[in-house]
């Protein structure tokens, strides 16, 4: 089966002149339709850098990223922008909701950017907010919502245009563990019910344990990989901890 997204020997080196930082060092990665992949690693291991490359937000220094067989580096800025609008949903650690727009409007604007028809723009935002359990808070502004609620709005926004790929960068990084767990549960549920492909990066092994497949990243390189399908969380965590060693 053809992967949704694939990297080939991809490198990201920052600050080419003077002291350069090798954030991503020749990573090969392929994510299949319907997979929930977690990339886990300590701070500074290059997780975000890799995710930005997957999300068509940054250019690799070397190597290439293919989205559904299409090389991103051959696309124009406008094409990459449209790809982000239609095919990729992004969930940020800092939520990044538009502060002057209500929860509903935050979802609606993504539909607008995706060029959705008027009827859909009217109906879908509330459906999505109900899906993430925020129907009654639809008219609230981000500042009137808790962190967990904001991240749920962000998930609704990321799903607005039925993207083929959902990317999440430390989605629970700013949440307490209980809120984080229920959010991950939601992501897991969306992944299962809709066969929504998810790639999540995190430094938290507990968070990573919700995934089907976990990659361990260290110093810009993939150092290990495990599948968690059908295993219970304790065993999974044990495996992962072993990987880290």
């Amino acid at each position, binding site marked *: 089966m053809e992967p949704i997204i694939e990297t080939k020997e991809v490198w990201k080196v920052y600050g080419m002149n003077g002291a350069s930082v090798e954030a991503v060092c020749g990573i090969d990665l392929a994510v299949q339709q319907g997979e929930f992949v977690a990339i886990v690693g300590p701070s500074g291991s290059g997780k975000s850098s890799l995710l930005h490359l997957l999300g068509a937000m940054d250019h690799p220094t070397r190597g290439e990223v293919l989205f559904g067989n299409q090389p991103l580096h051959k696309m124009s800025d406008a094409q990459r922008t449209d790809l982000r609008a239609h095919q990729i949903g992004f969930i940020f650690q800092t939520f990044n909701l538009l502060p002057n727009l209500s929860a509903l409007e935050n979802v609606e604007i*993504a539909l607008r950017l995706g060029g959705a028809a008027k009827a859909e723009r009217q109906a879908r935002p509330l459906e999505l907010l109900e899906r993430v359990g925020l129907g009654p808070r639809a008219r609230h502004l981000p500042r009137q919502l808790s962190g967990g609620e904001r991240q749920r709005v962000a998930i609704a926004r990321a799903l607005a245009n039925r993207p083929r790929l959902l990317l999440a960068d430390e989605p629970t990084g700013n949440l307490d563990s209980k809120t984080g767990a229920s959010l991950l549960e939601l992501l897991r549920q969306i992944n299962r019910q809709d066969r929504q492909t998810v790639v999540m990066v995190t430094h938290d092994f507990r968070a990573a344990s919700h995934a089907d497949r976990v990659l361990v990243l260290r110093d810009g390189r993939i150092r290990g990989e495990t599948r968690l399908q059908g295993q219970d969380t304790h065993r999974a965590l044990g495996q992962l901890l072993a990987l880290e060693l």
Partner: protein
Amino acid sequence: MLWDLAFKHLWQRRLRSALTILGVAIILQTHLVINGFKYSYEQDVQRQLSAFTGKVLVRQDTGDTLGAADFSLTGSSLEEETAQDILALPGIDRQASSAVLMAPLARSLAPTIPVAILVVGIEPGHEAAYLSGFQADEGSTNLEAPTSAILGRSVAELLSPEGEEQPLAAGDNFELQGQTFQVVGVLETAPSLYNNSVIIPLEAAQEAFERPDTVSAVIVCAGQVEDVAQIQAAVEMGFPGLLAISAQQMAASVDAILVDVRNFSNLLTTTVAGVAVVIVTIVVIVAVMEQRKEIGTLRAIGARRWRIFGMVAGQALVLCLLGAVLALPIGMAFLKWGMQWEKFDLIFIYWARNLVWAGLVGILAALLPAWQAVRVDPLEALRYE
């Protein structure tokens, strides 16, 4: 479009937006006022010129190129005898022609506002030479007695004794150069030259300004319009050193002056519009700086650059257009209470034009901030510290 986002950001910073709109309004109302004045000045001059149609002004050639448009005849002087010889030339409507003596009278309404009053000495019975059809609102336009005076609208107010609310009216007395005159009539509202004139008998003027047997010029009315050229030729042949200026020549000189006036007012209005562009640019640049993270987020979730451009340009345009709307009441208030001006129909014409200007200012002011905004990287959304 993302215009709702643009509005919401402006609304979020209400005070700043309101102050910017007010600033733009104050700037654009000067635009309104300058253009309004320019227009009414041009109208005034044109009315004055049309009152002079069919006439020839004979004056001393002072070598001044703008002499032909100098209605107050500064510096021109000729002997009264010469004037009478000119008035005796064939083809002249003597009744409607007269020798005139003009003398500006400095008079201050307030210490800082100089107001020139023009004293005009005219031969009794030939008042029409100067008045050219303008009538008295009250009283008559006949300088029957040696101390009779006809007053222009503004002068009637200026000369009224201190502490007196009412302007001078027919029958009132006033002092001029130590002599007492009696008002026989007050003119209807006319071009400013007339509004500022005190018209008295020629002899009284010669006495008051100690210029016996001297006049400033001769206003000659041709019996037939076709005779104008012939009269001009006769004057220039027979009286060297004198200029005989027709209404057409005056109009040409006036046009030259109006070009300067237009250039000056255009310079002023463009400068003022430039200031508005800079102010709005600064405000929108600051707004873009505040919105960097939002703009980055929008780019990250798929907003194309032109949408960002539109959002930022929308903010600049809204500020400018609302400023232009607000400029109308401000400009009207300024004219009404500051300048006692009531010709608001003019204001509306210029206001409509102002909206176009404001749009232009908005577009120019949008360019730099919008350019900065479209360069915001989607990764900007992910930076946090």
